């Protein structure tokens, strides 16, 4: 997986060093604007696409394995005669939704544990971080596979598998951030002023770590899309006829040399999704560093 979780962490740490906070559309470069617009377009397609497509994604609507640009099927049909374009748009929606849920849930669990460990400290910190480190030491993809395989073949189980291996990163990140922020002069000064407990956490600590978590999450969406697709590809997604991009690609492999589009097009869509989110996430990071408020 090219966007390993660790390199994501390192990128975030770099972004933090500049103490970045606010963003401004005007600070964006052309490529960055384009990538954000690209993400917007993708989200739009995923939201409204399935509703406007002329066919159903799970009912055959034409001949088998018709090539692109033939007989009213812009991107051809698959082996059961279902319209590829419709299935791809539906698959995008599924992918995107799943990736967002996985990222949000992982970030939420990790943030909760990280804040508890970092702010409370002491035995709670030690216990929570031992637990987290154990999960971090496991090979993420393999554990995700094992979990998904144990729960059963469906998108939901793949999502659970990924969440289980993804939250520890946020826990580590947030815990480190909280520890760092708590030691900063402004928190100490607030403490000296008499602020403590929830108020200190909420007013003086949490606002400092929020941008980090948000940037990390936005950088992670692309990686989650790809991980989900990989799990789906090796058979850990919902089986056909559900429009799931990874599964479509691996099923299409059987006819790949005669009908390349059934396998290649879903893979390309996955790549596009990941690319848009990776590029936009990186753009956000660069801009944050540049504005460096």
């Amino acid at each position, binding site marked *: *997986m*090219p*966007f*390993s*979780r*660790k*390199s994501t962490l*390192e990128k975030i740490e*770099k972004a933090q060093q500049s103490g970045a906070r606010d963003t401004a559309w005007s600070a964006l470069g052309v*490529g960055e604007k384009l990538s954000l617009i690209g993400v917007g377009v993708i989200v739009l397609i995923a939201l409204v696409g399935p509703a406007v497509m002329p066919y159903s994604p799970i009912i055959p609507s034409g001949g088998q394995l018709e090539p692109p640009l033939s007989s009213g099927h812009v991107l051809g049909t698959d082996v059961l005669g279902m319209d590829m374009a419709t299935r791809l748009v539906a698959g995008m929606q599924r992918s995107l939704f799943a990736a967002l849920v996985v990222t949000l849930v992982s970030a939420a669990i990790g943030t909760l544990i990280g804040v508890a460990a970092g702010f409370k400290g002491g035995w709670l910190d030690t216990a929570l971080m031992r637990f987290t480190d*154990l999960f971090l*030491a*496991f*090979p*993420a*993809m*393999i*554990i995700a*596979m*094992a*979990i998904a*395989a*144990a*729960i*059963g*073949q469906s998108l939901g189980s793949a999502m659970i598998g990924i969440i289980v291996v993804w939250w520890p990163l946020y826990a580590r990140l947030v815990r480190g951030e909280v520890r760092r922020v708590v030691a900063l002069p402004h928190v100490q000064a607030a403490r000296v002023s008499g602020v403590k407990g929830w108020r200190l956490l909420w007013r003086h600590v949490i606002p400092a770590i929020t941008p980090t978590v948000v940037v990390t999450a936005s950088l992670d969406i*692309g990686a989650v899309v*790809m991980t989900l*697709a*990989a799990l789906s*590809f*090796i*058979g*850990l997604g919902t089986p056909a006829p559900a429009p799931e991009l*990874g599964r479509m*690609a*691996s099923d299409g*492999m059987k006819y*790949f*040399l005669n009908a*390349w589009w059934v*396998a*290649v097009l879903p*893979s*390309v869509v*996955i*790549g*596009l999704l*990941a*690319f848009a989110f*990776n*590029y936009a996430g*990186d753009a956000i990071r660069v801009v944050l560093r540049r504005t460096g408020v």
Partner: protein
Amino acid sequence: MLTFVAKRLGSLVVVLFFLTLLVFTLGKVADSDPVRTYVGVNASAEAVEAAREELGLDDSIPVQFGNFVAGAVQGDFGISLASKRPIADELSTRLPATLELAGWALALTVVIGVSLSALYSRPGKFGAFMRFVFFSAASAPSFLIAMLSVLVFYKWLDGALPAAGRSSYGPYDDGTGFYVLDGILHGSPTYTGDAIAHLILPALAASVGSGVALARVLADGISSSLTSPWARTARSLGEREGTVLRRHALRNASSPALSLLAVQAGFMVSSLVVVEQVFSWNGLGSYLSGAIGVGDFPAIAAVCLILGAVYVILNTLVDVALAAVDPRVRLT
């Protein structure tokens, strides 16, 4: 240094234990009935009972776990529900296949990473274009790269490179299971060349993503090294940019790159699962996807355990290597 190694080995054992526990637990909560999968839906009650005993499911859970651990340590992972043969037999021929591919892919990752890192941090339009290309490559799923390379080198270039299997000739009976090595040991250039040709596309597909990630880390490290105060010191002493890069920046950028490489190696083991499936590579990965297809959880557990162990051991080795290189690591 000795205490550091001892500590890392200690935590290695702990992690491996919990990994085993996790996989075992998943096997218990798995939503399929292993006995039914084993004997079939229509089997008689006696057959089911016999199967229970054969699979060791009559024992209490802790005893089962003890047997599982004892077996795993000796390389015995039980019986496959699908093939009804010992899983270890199947794995023994497939593990070398996966390791061979992984080794080549890792080497290729380093080659790609180092050679591309210089392009990544170029200023101006060219650099921006390269970053665009890098992002594309890094965002492409490995199966997409695999498919495209098959289309190009197998279909359009008319079989310039083989796109399936490990060899056109089959294994040597007394071989090690590593085909390239076998070819060399038997002094057969044809066999060796054929094995290498079969390796190229799968290794490439498995390494492009990690290679690009490595290039990024190297490039980042080098560029931050080049702007550091000690690089300024070197310049003020009259060193040329090339010397600053070779003498100072590369050294300082290599240690984050090394630790990234360890992580990438772990991820590669898993992206191999995907690539093996595309190239019909007879390794652990294609075995795993086969097992997933029929719900053969003991087989899935065995593969996960082996790949997981490889990952954990590899990370420990890299940690020790880093500590040997950089004395500051040992203190933390």
